[in-house]
């Protein structure tokens, strides 16, 4: 440690020394011209800073709460996924509603025979040439 006071001098100017440190300063400073000069230098800088005018603050206005910023690449990705999902859904729905049902003639015959058994008076018998 330096034999001179160094940082203790600034702390002394600010009233931040106590106890042993203050005792050390009081024991050293009166007999040390270098530290006295240093103290004057520091005092000058401190006075210059404290002499700065206190400025009036401008009207700072109401700070706006910033909306969370979503990166553009993420927006594009979400839009692309949504578009693909929409197209897939729309295509599937169209396919389901417009797909023709394949029914063979024999199937129709069987269905008609079943219905005829259930309600013979309401459904006429199958023509002979369609058997």
């Amino acid at each position, binding site marked *: 440690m*330096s034999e*001179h006071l*160094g*940082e203790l*001098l*600034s*702390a002394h100017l*600010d009233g*931040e020394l106590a106890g042993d440190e203050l005792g050390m300063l009081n024991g050293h400073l009166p007999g040390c*011209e*270098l*530290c006295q*000069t*240093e103290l*004057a*230098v*520091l*005092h*000058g*800088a*401190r*006075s*210059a*800073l*404290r*002499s*700065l*005018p*206190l*400025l*009036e*603050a*401008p009207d*700072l*206005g109401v*700070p*706006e*709460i*910033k909306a969370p910023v979503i990166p553009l690449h993420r927006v594009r990705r979400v839009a692309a996924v949504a578009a693909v999902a929409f197209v897939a859904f729309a295509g599937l729905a169209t396919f389901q509603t417009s797909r023709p049902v394949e029914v063979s003639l024999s199937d129709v015959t069987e269905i008609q025979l079943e219905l005829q058994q259930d309600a013979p008076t309401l459904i006429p018998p199958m023509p002979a040439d369609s058997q």
Partner: protein
Amino acid sequence: MSDPTTWEEVARTHGRRIYNYAYRLTGNPADAADLSQEVLLRVRTGLERYTPGLFEAWLWRITHNCFVDGYRKQKRRPTVALPEQFDRVAALSSPAPDVVLAHTTLGEEVQDALMGLSADFREAVVLCDVVGMSYDEIAVSIDVPIGTVRSRIHRGRRLLREALA
């Protein structure tokens, strides 16, 4: 004095000190206003989570963080490296500091000298000599040991004095 409950109250009671801190650190009104608004914005969003108690420490921690964040983004502020043999005391042949400072137009010259300090030193002396905080308060606000605060203030003042000589 009870803690403020709204950002408007914070702006009213602390806005001027925050702005002066911001101005002395950034060196121009526009950046100072931006920094002050950013502080108030963070106060506004943070008040809901604030636990009543050490309001000043909380507020100045926010202020410090805003400055550090802005400083990191810009990285265009001038800095001055510490001279070699920094601990060497001023030569006795130098003019008396009072004489030097008497010929200095306080204001712009001091501000220019402040801007020549590194951000750490500048903030320490501004918090101490412009805002008027104790070493303990500064240590809490900028989250460094009190020994670091003492060192930064001392070295900051010495560099400032050299810049004004």
